[in-house]
């Protein structure tokens, strides 16, 4: 078997194995969440899960606009009715009392364990007497028909005081019995999906049901807007899918065109692509094996990486070392090839160490893909190139004679560019750790979400008091104990407001304490008899009251599950969590004047209470990841330098290769920051890729001691930089911030590296 046949056989076998594995196993994931940071510890992970998968993530706020007020009310009613019976929705309310009836019933049923102001004195003979005298007034009033409905079961008025609290909590404006926004121009609905927030197929199905129902029920000219974490995730998934496809196609087409122009031979172009593609298939297969799925963003990035992986066949092809017949030349390129592949693989270190699942995927794909593409190039390409084909270099000339600059000018240019970059980076505020900027969603959607949230009085909860306990009961008791300090903080204007879930779900201890205030049926009956004396009630008028009190004392205590299907249930479920061995109660806080002071007030002497700044928390996570990315970048540069120092057998030569690459990366960051763009962790991670690319270019300009610069080095650089620019340039047009940041950074990085190369070439003097 000839060397050529063997190479082809091995390559084909490997390609078939990897391809077969992928064909059978490949799962493409496009949930954007993979590109959001994972929490550093269990608590942070729980907080993030809560944001992503908690009951709040299942809430959809919808607004109907257009048409007349009556038409909006009609559409609101029809939509709420249509959705309430759908299995995709656990709850659908337009604020009408028909739906709220379930909430009213739940409150009325559990009034004796819920009453915050319940006192035993209300159930004494004199307390009851007062209630019954008031009851006569109620029966005489014009609105008796409304007010007397609770009288016989609840003469002491517990239900009414709970309803007043409910009305106070639910501040959404009503018109004609349905919720509207402040201007009255939109009818509002609150919906809860049965699917969890991270079940994007379930979320998409619920949204489809909502859209279809609205299309069927709406009158002409009406429009619906809706927002929910789930809906936003579905939208970003659609954007990711669409964008990943577009970027891949654009990049592949560009790379193909560049190669066709450079080589003017279909077989040679095919060989270059095959070598690079083999590497990528191997990379995707490894990602699939390690992660169990491959993200659409990873695939798009992979398609872009093709533009970089194709550099290795290009180095080989353009250096005239592509055939075994020219073994000597191939040997000459060997070292540069090996070093280029090894250093680029090091470039993925920052991705691998990022702490984001999605970025780790990208890193793994890059490392495996580049190594495999390098190997495929080395062993496969020379045996495949048609004999007799040579790269006809354009007239860039030999690097040593191409163009000349005074050495002083080159040094001055480097110093000037670097000083300018340092000045820009020192002057501009550097990092932006706002997680909102990572999402591919257009800003208009975020604004719409904010609007709808404000309309229903559910502003994005930023500050939350987290109360921990070993059991739910303990956490609830501790939350109740926090009620006093919270009320004091409000009275002192340190705090605007708070939502204490124990109003709706008191601890069992509190429930028992309240039930203990209620007299036994016989006692109550006797007291009522006395209290009724002289009043015109029939003897058995309050029999339902005695029954209810007896039932309340005998009934099991109130649990969160008792609120199933009610609006209160939504709130309770979102604020109480039993997370494996630790129960947590969330107390949303609003209107905080001084977070530090409030934190001291609420947490001093209470180890189990924590004040969490949700947005700050995610921002801090990103900050921590950024620091980690810095370390990874430093480590990557060190490794690249070590590999070069050993490979080139000269630290000073290695420094001459690495230094321009690092400076070019610095110019790149300055160019991004200087044009008014905030730097994110993604730009930083891309810096190591830029350094890897720069090192590759320098390697071909500064070979090891005793090796000559290839006469075609400039043409090589032209081809490889053109493919890389095509690929990462396509990525820079992405609407996914992660891809855009990586694309912009690498594109600008290649340009900066080319500037550095041009300056160095100009200063190059013939060594002959």
């Amino acid at each position, binding site marked *: 078997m000839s060397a050529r046949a063997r190479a082809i056989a091995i390559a084909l076998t490997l390609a078939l194995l990897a391809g077969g594995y992928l064909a059978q196993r490949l799962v493409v994931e496009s949930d954007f969440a993979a590109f959001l940071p994972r929490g550093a510890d269990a608590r942070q992970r729980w907080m993030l899960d809560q944001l992503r998968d908690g009951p709040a993530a299942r809430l959809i706020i919808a607004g109907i606009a257009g048409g007349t007020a009556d038409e909006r*009310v009609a559409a609101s009613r029809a939509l709420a009715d249509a959705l309430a019976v759908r299995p995709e929705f656990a709850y659908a309310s337009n604020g*009408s*009392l*028909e739906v709220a*009836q379930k909430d009213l019933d739940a409150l009325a049923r559990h009034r004796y364990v819920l009453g915050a102001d319940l006192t035993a004195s209300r159930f004494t003979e004199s307390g009851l007497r007062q209630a019954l005298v008031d009851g006569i*007034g109620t*029966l*005489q*009033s*014009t*609105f*008796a*028909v*409304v007010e*007397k*409905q609770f009288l*016989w079961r609840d003469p002491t008025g517990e239900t009414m005081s709970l309803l007043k609290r409910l009305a106070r909590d639910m501040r959404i*404006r*009503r*018109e*004609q*019995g349905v919720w509207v926004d402040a201007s009255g121009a939109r009818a509002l609905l609150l919906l809860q999906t049965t699917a969890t927030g991270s079940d994007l197929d379930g979320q998409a199905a619920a949204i489809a049901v909502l859209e279809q129902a609205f299309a069927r029920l709406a009158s002409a000219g009406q429009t619906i807007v809706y927002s929910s974490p789930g809906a936003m995730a579905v939208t970003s998934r659609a954007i990711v899918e669409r964008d990943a496809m577009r970027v891949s196609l654009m990049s592949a087409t560009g790379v193909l065109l560049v190669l066709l122009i450079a080589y003017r031979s279909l077989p040679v172009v095919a060989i270059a692509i095959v070598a690079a593609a083999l590497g990528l298939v191997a990379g995707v297969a490894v990602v699939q094996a390690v992660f169990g799925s491959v993200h659409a963003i990873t695939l798009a990035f992979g398609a872009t990486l093709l533009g970089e992986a194709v550099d290795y066949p290009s180095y080989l092809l353009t250096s005239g070392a592509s055939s075994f017949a020219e073994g000597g030349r191939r040997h000459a390129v060997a070292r540069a090839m090996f070093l280029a592949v090894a250093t680029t693989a090091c470039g993925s270190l920052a991705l691998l160490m990022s702490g984001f699942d999605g970025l780790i995927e990208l890193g793994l794909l890059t490392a495996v893909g580049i190594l495999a593409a390098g190997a495929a190039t080395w062993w496969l390409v020379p045996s495949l190139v048609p004999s007799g084909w040579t790269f006809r270099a354009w007239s860039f000339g030999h690097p040593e004679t191409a163009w000349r600059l005074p050495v002083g000018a080159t040094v001055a240019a480097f110093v000037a560019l670097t000083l300018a970059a340092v000045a820009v980076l020192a002057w501009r505020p550097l990092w932006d750790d706002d997680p909102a900027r990572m999402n591919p969603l257009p800003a208009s959607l975020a604004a719409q979400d904010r609007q709808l949230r404000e309309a229903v009085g559910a502003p994005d909860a930023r500050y939350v008091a987290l109360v921990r306990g070993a059991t739910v009961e303990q956490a609830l008791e501790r939350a109740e104990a926090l009620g006093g300090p919270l009320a004091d903080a409000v009275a002192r204007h340190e705090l605007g407001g708070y939502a204490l879930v124990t109003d709706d779900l008191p601890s069992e201890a509190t429930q028992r304490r309240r039930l203990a205030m209620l007299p036994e049926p016989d006692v109550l009956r006797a007291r009522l008899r006395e209290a009724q004396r002289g009043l*015109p*009630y*029939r003897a*058995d*008028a309050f029999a339902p009251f005695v029954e209810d009190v007896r039932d309340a004392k005998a009934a099991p205590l109130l649990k969160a599950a008792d609120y199933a299907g009610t609006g209160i249930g939504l709130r309770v479920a979102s604020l109480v969590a039993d997370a494996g061995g630790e129960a947590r109660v969330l107390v949303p806080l609003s209107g905080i004047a001084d977070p530090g002071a409030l934190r001291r007030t609420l947490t001093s002497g209470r180890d189990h209470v924590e004040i969490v700044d949700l947005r700050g928390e995610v921002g801090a996570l990103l900050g921590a990841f950024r620091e980690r990315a810095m370390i990874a970048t430093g480590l990557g540069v060190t490794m690249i330098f070590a590999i070069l120092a050993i490979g080139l057998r000269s630290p000073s030569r290695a420094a001459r290769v690495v230094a321009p690459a690092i400076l070019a990366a610095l110019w790149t960051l300055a160019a991004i920051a200087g044009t008014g763009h905030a730097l994110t962790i993604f730009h930083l991670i891309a810096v190591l890729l830029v350094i890897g690319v720069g090192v590759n270019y320098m390697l071909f300009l500064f070979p090891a001691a005793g090796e000559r610069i290839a006469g075609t080095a400039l043409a090589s650089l032209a081809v490889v930089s053109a493919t890389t620019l095509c690929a990462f340039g396509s990525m820079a047009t992405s609407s996914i911030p992660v891809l855009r940041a990586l694309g912009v950074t690498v594109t600008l990085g290649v340009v900066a590296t080319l500037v550095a190369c041009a300056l160095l070439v100009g200063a190059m003097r013939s060594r002959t």
Partner: protein
Amino acid sequence: MSAARGLAVSIALALAASPACALDLRDIAATLGAVDQSRVRFVDVRTIASLGTPVERRGTLAYAKPSTLEMVVETPLAERLSIVGGTMTIESRGATRVVDLSRGEPLFAWIEGIRATLAGDEAALRKHFDPTVSGTIDRWTLRLAPRDLRLRSLVAGIAISGERERVRVIEVEEASGDHSVMTLTPIAAAGR
């Protein structure tokens, strides 16, 4: 002959009855809508199952076109209730409440039903109720069935009867079985 006579009587009766059969809400609304203002005394007898004796309320009711209604209860509990435009003010037991009726809170719809009847405001009536009409314009009865479920859980129906532009009796049948009958008598000749 007697058969023919019988037939003639039947036809005559049918002809006489037909205007009554054709009586619809629009006729009553038009008649009532022509009234600029009115002032009456009322006696409201409320029968409540769990109360040994009915509650008897007395006071005055004043209406002025197009949408002002004032109800002053003198006994047994002094109350004042006024609707001006879309706003209802209730003064009762030392407290004053203001309710925006345009928000369509169904619990207040029954009072709106009475105002709308007095004003001959057909659209407002149909918003909250399914109205049916019987009798003649000289002696009509307007039955209002609440459309809203929540209101229906409290008020089974309202029957308003009158003679031409004069409303005589307002009966409220509650879902609980309790009911009230409010009889209106003019104080002075209703201004036209």
